[in-house]
C-alpha cells in the first residue's frame, strides 16, 4: 500500500483516484515551482488543481503556509494561459479567508476586470468582490457601475451577483448602484434579468411602495427569464401576504396568470404560491390544484414529487379541494420513488373516506421499511390525524403502529409513534388496553431513555384504572431491574401509583418498593423510600397529594423561593403556598405535519409569569404585595390604529391587583410625559397608587402601573368594571427632528372599560387524577346548586362556556364531550387567590336547554361561595 504518487504512478494508475494520496506538505513543496521562469502553465495548473482539491476535501491550511502559497500563486498572473488564470481566480476566492494580505492582487484583478478579454472579466469581478472590504469598495465603485450595465451578459451577471453579496458588507454603497441595476433589468439576457431583479428587490425590500411599483412595472412589460418569474411571484405573494387586501388585487391576478406560463418551473412556483397564501378559498385554489394534478402524471420524478408534496399541504387545510386528484394520487402509490409514494399515500389518507383506510394501510406497510425516517414520521402523523377523524378504525391503526414500533428507526420516528399511540389511547377508551400492551412490549427493548420514562409515566397514570392492573406490574418492575437510573426512578414512581390506587396490589407493591430501597442510585432510593412510607400510612388524602397529583408549583419559582429561604434562615418552616403556581402551558396544536428538520429548540424559557414577578418586584411600591398569583393575557383598551395604543395586563396578588398598562404613542409630533391611567372602580375596590410612565416618545412603548386593593369585607363580589382614562402632559415636537417644545399642556384620553372577572382570581392547575384530589379536599366546604342554562343548546357549548367563564383547568379530558350523549360530567380544578385548592364538578344534562348541577369543593369557605355566586 505504500504508494508515492508522482507523475509515473498517475500514468500507470488504473482508474483509481490520482488525487487520493495527496499530501499537503508535498503539494505545497511543489508550489515553489510557481517561482520558476519561464512559467510552465501545464504543470502550474496541475499544482493549483491539487491545492484546490485539498481545500475541497476539507484539508486545513495554516495561515503561514496558505499565505506563502498564495504569494507564490500571484506570480502566475504573468502567464497568459487562460485556464491557469481562471484557476488563479478560484484559488484567490478559496484562500480569501485563510491567507493574509489577499488584497495585494486587487490591482491585477481590476486590470482583468476592465481589460479586453471577456473570458476574464466576469470571474475577475467575482474574485475581486470576494477580497474587497467596505473601505475598499469605494475604490472599485466606478468599475462596478460600469460592469453592471456591460453588454456582455457574463460580466453584467457577475457584477450584479457580486453586488448582492457585497450588500452584507456595505449596504449604503451598493444602494447607489440602483439606477444601473434598473437598466440591467431590461436586458435581453435571461440570467442578467433574473439577477438584476433580485438585486433590485433586496435594495428596495424595506420600501413597500417601491416594491409594489417594481412588480407593477415588470408584470406589465413581461419577463423573459423563468427564474425571474419565480422571483417575481415570490415577491408578489410576500406583498400580498403583508397587505390584507384580499385576493382581488392585481398581484393575485398576476400570480394566477403565471399558471399559464410555458415553463413548468414558473407554473409550479405560481401554484405553490397560491396554495401557501393564507385564507385562500376553494375557488381560488382550484386552478392551482388542477395544474398540480397534471404534474402528477409527468415523467419527471422531480415534478411529480413537487406536485404531490404541495398537494399534501393543500390536503391539510382543504382536503375537499384535493379529492379531485385522488385517482392520480392512487397511481402514484406504486411510484418507484418512495418519497413520492409516501406523500401520495399520506395525502390520500387525509382526503380518503373511511372505507379506503384499510386498503391504504396495507399498501403503506409494503414499503414503509424502504423510506427515510423523515417520511416515516410523516406517515405516522398522517395516521395520527386519521385516528382522530375515524376513531372506529383504531384497531387497524394500532396493529400497524405496533408493527412500525418493532422495526428499526431513529429517535424522532419512535417518538412520533409513541406520541401517536398515546393520543389514540387518550382519545379512545376502547383502545386503551391494546395500546398499553404494545407500549409495554416496546419498553422491554427500548434504547431511548426519554421514551421509556414517558411510557412509564403513562402506565402509572392509566394502568391502575384498567380492569386488570396487575399485568402491568411485571413490565414496570422489569425496568427497575434492567435499566439506567432515570428509567428506574420513573418505574418506581409508576409502581407507587399502582399501589396507591389498587388496594389488592398494595402488599406486593410495598415488597417491590422495599427492594428498590437497596438501589445503587440516590434518586431511585429516595423515591422508593418516600413512596414506601407514604403508602404504608394507607391514607387516601396522603396518596392523592403526594403520589397521584404531584407538585403544581413552578419549578423556577420554587428554586428562587428556596434560595431566598436559605439566605434568610428563620424559625418558620418553609411554606409551599408562597411559591408561585406553574401555569398550565397551552396545548400546542400539532398542525404542522410537514417534515421539518429535526432541530428542536431545546432551551427552557422562563415562564412568562416569572418574568413579570421580577419586573414588578423591581418597583418599590409593589414590594410588599407578596407573591404574584396570576397574570392575565394582554387586553386591548384602544381600537387599532388610534392616536395612542394601550393594552393592559392584570397582575393579581393575594389582596391587590396591579394593572400594567403598555402604552405606545403613535403620533410623531407629540411627546407624552407623566402618563398615568386613572381608573374608577364600580365596586368596593380602592385605588391605592399610580406609577406613571415618565415619558412616552413616538413609537417607543412605555409602561405605567395602577395598584388597587381588593375589597375586604364583601369577599364574594370579585367582579368589577373599571372606567379607564389616560392622563398625561403633551409636548408638541417637530416630527422630523423629534425636538420637543419647552411648554407642555395636560390632556386626557378615554380608554375602553376594563373588566375584572372571576377568571382573574383563579389559576388553572391540572390534577392528573381528579378523583383522588376530590377525596383529598373532602366535603368540609362543599356547596351544591342547580342552574338552568336556557340559552345554551348543546353540551359542547355549555362546556366551552363554563371553562371560559371560570378560567379553570378541565381534568380527565372531560372538556371533550362524547358524541350522541345527553349528559356529561365536567371536572374543573384550580387554585383560588390566596392558595386554596378549588374543585368543581359540574353535571350537565341536555333537555330543551342545558341543566347544570354544580358541586364545588374547596379547602376554604370563601372560594366555594365566590364560584356559586359568580355562576348564579
Amino acid at each position, binding site marked *: 500500500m505504500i504508494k508515492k504518487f508522482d507523475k509515473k504512478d498517475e500514468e500507470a494508475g488504473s482508474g483509481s*483516484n490520482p488525487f487520493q494520496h495527496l499530501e499537503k506538505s508535498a503539494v505545497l513543496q511543489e508550489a515553489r515551482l510557481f517561482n520558476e521562469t519561464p512559467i510552465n502553465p501545464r504543470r502550474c495548473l496541475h499544482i493549483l*488543481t491539487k491545492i484546490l482539491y485539498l481545500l475541497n476535501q476539507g484539508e486545513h491550511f495554516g495561515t503561514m503556509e496558505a499565505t506563502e502559497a498564495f504569494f507564490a500563486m500571484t506570480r502566475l498572473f504573468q502567464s497568459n494561459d487562460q*485556464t491557469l488564470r481562471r484557476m488563479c481566480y478560484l484559488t484567490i476566492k478559496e484562500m480569501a479567508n485563510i491567507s493574509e494580505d489577499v488584497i495585494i492582487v486587487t490591482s491585477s484583478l481590476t486590470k482583468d476586470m476592465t481589460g479586453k478579454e471577456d473570458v476574464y472579466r466576469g470571474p475577475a469581478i467575482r474574485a475581486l468582490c470576494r477580497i474587497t472590504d467596505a473601505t475598499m469598495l469605494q475604490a472599485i465603485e466606478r468599475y462596478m457601475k460600469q460592469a453592471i450595465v456591460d453588454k456582455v451578459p457574463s460580466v453584467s451577471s457577475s457584477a450584479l451577483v457580486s453586488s448582492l453579496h457585497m450588500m452584507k458588507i456595505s449596504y449604503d454603497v451598493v444602494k447607489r448602484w440602483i439606477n444601473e441595476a434598473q437598466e440591467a433589468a431590461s436586458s435581453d439576457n435571461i440570467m442578467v434579468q433574473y439577477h438584476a431583479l433580485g438585486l433590485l428587490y433586496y435594495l428596495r425590500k424595506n420600501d413597500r411602495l417601491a416594491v409594489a411599483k417594481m412588480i407593477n412595472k415588470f408584470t406589465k412589460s413581461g419577463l423573459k427569464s423563468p427564474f425571474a418569474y419565480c422571483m417575481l411571484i415570490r415577491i408578489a405573494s*410576500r406583498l400580498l401576504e403583508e397587505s390584507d387586501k384580499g385576493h382581488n388585487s392585481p398581484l393575485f391576478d398576476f400570480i394566477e396568470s403565471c399558471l399559464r406560463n410555458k415553463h413548468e418551473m414558473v407554473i409550479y412556483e405560481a401554484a405553490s404560491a397560491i396554495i401557501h397564501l393564507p385564507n385562500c378559498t376553494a375557488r381560488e385554489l382550484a386552478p392551482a390544484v388542477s395544474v398540480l394534478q397534471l404534474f402528477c402524471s409527468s415523467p419527471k420524478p422531480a415534478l411529480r414529487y413537487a406536485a404531490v408534496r404541495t398537494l399534501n399541504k393543500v390536503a391539510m387545510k382543504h382536503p375537499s379541494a384535493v379529492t379531485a386528484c385522488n385517482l392520480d394520487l392512487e397511481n402514484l402509490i406504486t411510484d418507484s420513488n418512495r418519497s413520492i409514494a409516501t406523500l401520495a399515500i399520506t395525502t390520500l389518507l387525509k382526503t380518503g373516506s373511511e372505507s379506503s383506510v384499510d386498503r391504504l394501510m396495507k399498501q403503506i406497510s409494503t414499503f414503509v421499511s424502504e423510506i427515510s425516517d*423523515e417520511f416515516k414520521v410523516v406517515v405516522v402523523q398522517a395516521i395520527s390525524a386519521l385516528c382522530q377523524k375515524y376513531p372506529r378504525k383504531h384497531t387497524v391503526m394500532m396493529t400497524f403502529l405496533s408493527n412500525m414500533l418493532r422495526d428499526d428507526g431513529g429517535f424522532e420516528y419512535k417518538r412520533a409513534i409513541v406520541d401517536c399511540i398515546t393520543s389514540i389511547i387518550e382519545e379512545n377508551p376502547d383502545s386503551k388496553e391494546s395500546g398499553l400492551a404494545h407500549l409495554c412490549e416496546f419498553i422491554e427493548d427500548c434504547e431511548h431513555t426519554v421514551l421509556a420514562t414517558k411510557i412509564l409515566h403513562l402506565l402509572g397514570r392509566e394502568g391502575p384504572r384498567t380492569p386488570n392492573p396487575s399485568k402491568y406490574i411485571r413490565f414496570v418492575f422489569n425496568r427497575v431491574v434492567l435499566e439506567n437510573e432515570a428509567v428506574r426512578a420513573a418505574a418506581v414512581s409508576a409502581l407507587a401509583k399502582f399501589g396507591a390506587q389498587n388496594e389488592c396490589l398494595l402488599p406486593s407493591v410495598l415488597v417491590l418498593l422495599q427492594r428498590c430501597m437497596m438501589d445503587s442510585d440516590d434518586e431511585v432510593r429516595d423515591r422508593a423510600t418516600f413512596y414506601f412510607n407514604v403508602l404504608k400510612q394507607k391514607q387516601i388524602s396522603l396518596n392523592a397529594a403526594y403520589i397521584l397529583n404531584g407538585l403544581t408549583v413552578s419549578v423556577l419559582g420554587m428554586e428562587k423561593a428556596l434560595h431566598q429561604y436559605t439566605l434568610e434562615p428563620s424559625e418558620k418552616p418553609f411554606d409551599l403556598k408562597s411559591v408561585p403556581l406553574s401555569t398550565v402551558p397551552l396545548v400546542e396544536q400539532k398542525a404542522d405535519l410537514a417534515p421539518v428538520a429535526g432541530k428542536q429548540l431545546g432551551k427552557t424559557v422562563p415562564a412568562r409569569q416569572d418574568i413579570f414577578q421580577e419586573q414588578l418586584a423591581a418597583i418599590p411600591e409593589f414590594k410588599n404585595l407578596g407573591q404574584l398569583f396570576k397574570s392575565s393575557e394582554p387586553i386591548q383598551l384602544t381600537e387599532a390604529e388610534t392616536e395612542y395604543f394601550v393594552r393592559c395586563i392584570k397582575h393579581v396578588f393575594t389582596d391587590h391587583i396591579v394593572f400594567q398598562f403598555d402604552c405606545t404613542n403613535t403620533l410623531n409630533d407629540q411627546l407624552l410625559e407623566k402618563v398615568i391611567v386613572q381608573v374608577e372602580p364600580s365596586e368596593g375596590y380602592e385605588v391605592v397608587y399610580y406609577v406613571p410612565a415618565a415619558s412616552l416618545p413616538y413609537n417607543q412603548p412605555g409602561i405605567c402601573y395602577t395598584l388597587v386593593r381588593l375589597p375586604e369585607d364583601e369577599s364574594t363580589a370579585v367582579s368589577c368594571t373599571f372606567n379607564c382614562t389616560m392622563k398625561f402632559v403633551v409636548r408638541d415636537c417637530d416630527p422630523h427632528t423629534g425636538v420637543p417644545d419647552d411648554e407642555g399642556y395636560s390632556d386626557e384620553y378615554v380608554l375602553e372599560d376594563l373588566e375584572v372577572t372571576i377568571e382573574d382570581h383563579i389559576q388553572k392547575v391540572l390534577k392528573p387524577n381528579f378523583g383522588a384530589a376530590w377525596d383529598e379536599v373532602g366535603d368540609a366546604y362543599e356547596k351544591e346548586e342547580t342552574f338552568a342554562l336556557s340559552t345554551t343548546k348543546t353540551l359542547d357549548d355549555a362546556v366551552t362556556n363554563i371553562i371560559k367563564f371560570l378560567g379553570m383547568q378541565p381534568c380527565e379530558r372531560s372538556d371533550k364531550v362524547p358524541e350522541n350523549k345527553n349528559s356529561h360530567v365536567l371536572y374543573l380544578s384550580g387554585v383560588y387567590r390566596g392558595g386554596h385548592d378549588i374543585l368543581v364538578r359540574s353535571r350537565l344534562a341536555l333537555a330543551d336547554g342545558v341543566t347544570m348541577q354544580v358541586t364545588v369543593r374547596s379547602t376554604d369557605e370563601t372560594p366555594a361561595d365566590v364560584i356559586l355566586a359568580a355562576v348564579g
Partner: protein
Amino acid sequence: MDAVLLDPSLYTVKAVLILDNDGERLFAKYYDETYPSVKEQKAFEKNIFNKTHRTDSEIALLEGLTVVYKSSIDLYFYVIGSSHENELMLMAVLNCLFDSLSQMLRKNVEKRTLLENMEGLFLAVDEIIDGGVILESDPQQVVHRVALRGDDVPLTEQTVSQVLQSAKEQIKWSLLR
C-alpha cells in the same frame, strides 16, 4: 402549516456534491452554514449516499433539505436546497452541471475522466453557482465560458500509455453498458 413563505431570495443552492461509488467526496461545495464543520459535512454526505445510491429516483428529502440527484456510471451528483425551495430550480442547476460536464468530458462522465479534468469541474461549478446564487443555467454558455482548451493539447504531450489507458477505459465502459 409551515407557511413561513420563503423570503424572496436569490440564494437558492445550499450545496453541490459529487461523490464516487464508495460515497467518497470528489467534490463538495457548501454555500451556507447548514453544515459548518468538515465533520458534519462528511456525516451528511454519508447519510445522503446511503439513502440514495441504490435508487435511481432523482429527488429526496433528507435532514429537512431537498436533495436532487443523478448518477452516471461511478459518479453521483447532488444539488441541495432548502425544503421550501422550488424543486425544479434545483433540478435546473443539476441538469446544467451534468450537461456541461458531459459536453466537456465528451460524454465520458465517469470518475477517471472527471479526475483528469478536475480544473474543468472547478471552473464549471464556479460558472454555474456563485455563493449559492444560480449564475447560469444554460450548459452551452457554461462550456463556452469555461473555454477549456482540452483539445488543443498536442498529442505529443500525452504519453503513449495515457492514450492507451483512455482507449482501454472507453472500450471497457462501452462493453459494460
